[in-house]
């Protein structure tokens, strides 16, 4: 019966970000959510528990507001949560997140399988999963779209790769990063949310851990993409179509 750890990030829900006329991003009225693919990670952990038994632990590092995210994650089929909580943890860079999660898992959570989303919906650096595996010294299988645990304690997965699907097998313990095709995350019911508040949460303060190293990347700025539109109408005649093709070529849309 596998002990499964699902990692998640509590991120700004991009639907609430507004764009000012200058292109600057306005975060004044945002709401937060569990990062999209991390919901797939938690769902996969809960699904596997349904099949094989064992336990599901959800794990995150974040600012105190992330407590709501911890409840959200617990309402999705997890048994318990570990929460590295510090006001400075809302701006972690991938290497720092991986170091924090690694330290907590190594010292506090027995595991056979660790599941992460392939990337976060805010920055999508796709770094935390592989770095965490490296930190723990276990194999990492990324972009997993199908996962089964065999009776021999090995996992078989299908990976989405550029031009096809790669089938990989590995002994546990292992870390996988999952892509959205792997499952459809549940919408928690009312009782699931109410029960989540009664599940155990271990909160770990910054002082209880090794000092977090300096960020290896610095975000200098963030602006909205600018989309230019212009409208040109072509007649549905042989000449019009020829001009249309020519216009697309000129813009580099087709070659």
């Amino acid at each position, binding site marked *: 019966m596998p002990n499964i750890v699902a990692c998640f990030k509590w991120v700004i829900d991009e639907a609430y970000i507004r764009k000012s006329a200058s292109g600057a991003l306005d975060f004044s009225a945002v*709401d937060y*959510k569990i990062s999209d693919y991390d919901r797939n990670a938690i769902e996969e952990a809960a699904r596997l528990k349904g099949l094989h038994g064992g336990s599901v632990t959800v794990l995150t590092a974040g600012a105190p507001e992330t*407590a*709501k995210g911890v*409840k*959200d994650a617990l*309402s999705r089929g997890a048994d318990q949560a570990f929460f590295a909580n510090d006001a400075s943890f809302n701006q972690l860079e991938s290497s720092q997140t991986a170091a924090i999660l690694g330290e907590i898992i190594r010292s506090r959570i027995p595991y056979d399988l660790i599941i992460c989303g392939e990337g976060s919906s805010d920055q999508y650096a796709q770094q935390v999963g592989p770095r965490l595996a490296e930190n723990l010294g276990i194999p990492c299988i990324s972009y997993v779209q199908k996962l089964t645990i065999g009776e021999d304690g090995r996992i078989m997965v299908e990976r989405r790769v550029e031009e096809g699907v790669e089938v990989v097998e590995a002994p546990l313990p292992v870390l996988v990063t999952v892509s959205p095709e792997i499952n459809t995350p549940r*919408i*928690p*019911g*009312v*009782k699931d*949310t*109410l029960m*989540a*508040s009664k599940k155990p949460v271990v909160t770990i303060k910054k002082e209880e851990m090794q000092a977090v190293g300096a960020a290896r990347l610095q975000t200098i700025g963030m602006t909205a993409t600018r989309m230019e539109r212009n409208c040109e109408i072509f007649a549905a005649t042989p000449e019009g179509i020829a001009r249309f093709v020519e216009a697309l070529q000129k813009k580099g849309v087709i070659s």
Partner: protein
Amino acid sequence: MDFKLTEEQELIRKNMREFADKYVEPIAVEIDENSRHPAEVFKKLAEGDWMGIPIPTEYGGAGSDYLTHILAIEELSRSCASTGFTVSIHVGIACMLVLLNGTEEQKQQYLLPMAKGEKLGAFVLTEPGAGTDVMAATTTAVLDGDSYVLNGTKTFTSNGPTGDVYMVFAWTDKAAGRKGMSCFIIPKGTAGMTAGTHFRKMGLRSSQTSEMVFKDCRVPKANLLGKEGAGLVMAMAGFDHGRVGIAAQCIGIIQAALDESIRYSKERVQFGNPISKNQAISWMIADMATELSAARFLTYHAAWLKDQKQNFSKEAAMAKLFASEAAMRHTIKAVQIHGGYGYCKGAKVERLMRDAKITEIYEGTSEAQRMVISGNVLR
């Protein structure tokens, strides 16, 4: 003062938003067009414990509070006011009537499956000649041995054609006046009770409404809800709960009208600019947002009072009155903002405007709410 929802309430609201976006919004046009009861959606609502949020877990509910139920109705109604209403009358009136007045046996037998969402509740009071004037009702229940025999015709029964458990009001002693009406729990399939065909309505079309005919309908004494003669008092308390639900339905309608109006007015270009740049339009949107907030606070306050076990009769009437009239005002404005496009089928605001009208009529007309409120403040 604390205007903050709990983390659970915020998450539950968010989950209902996602549920409505995924399962309700995509079919809202079709179920309106075809006046269809979306049984598949109600099955999913039952699975997520949405059909009995404020009912204790021992009676099949989720064991949460009334405000949480109100948040769910609001979010559901934002996608489809009919679906929101069906849940509202089921929980707010049918389930609450049994929870507040039923015996332990009645709660186990009828409330439990209703709160689990396995059975749908209906409230059967209005008659062809008795709307706001409840005393003009003519349906009777005569005691005969161990059972009551009901005769009469009811109308505008919501969940009439689709209901499983009916809360039926009838005179057991007409001469006793306000203390002469009683309430009976009657399960579907009881001989002598028939539901008519679904009315074709202007709006709220997927909510199923019909006549209910009682012809020598024999109901065991055990199905009397509360005491004989206590029917009207129970009905009024049921309305208090139901009205907060209608107010929540209205908030959902106004929120949808506002969302659509903001989106459209920013996209629609006239005279070289998005129409949102015109003061005439932006002020309509400002009024809409303001009255939406006012309606929301009145409604949440009424639900909060209920959760605090305080009297909320007046506040429920105020919330329902203000929210329903605001819903009508602002859905008309939303159609105006959309111009000709808003007058066509398929535009969400067209459906919202039709759906809004009934909220000023059912579960007590605006006039009836003013009677309740003035009766309270002129005491």
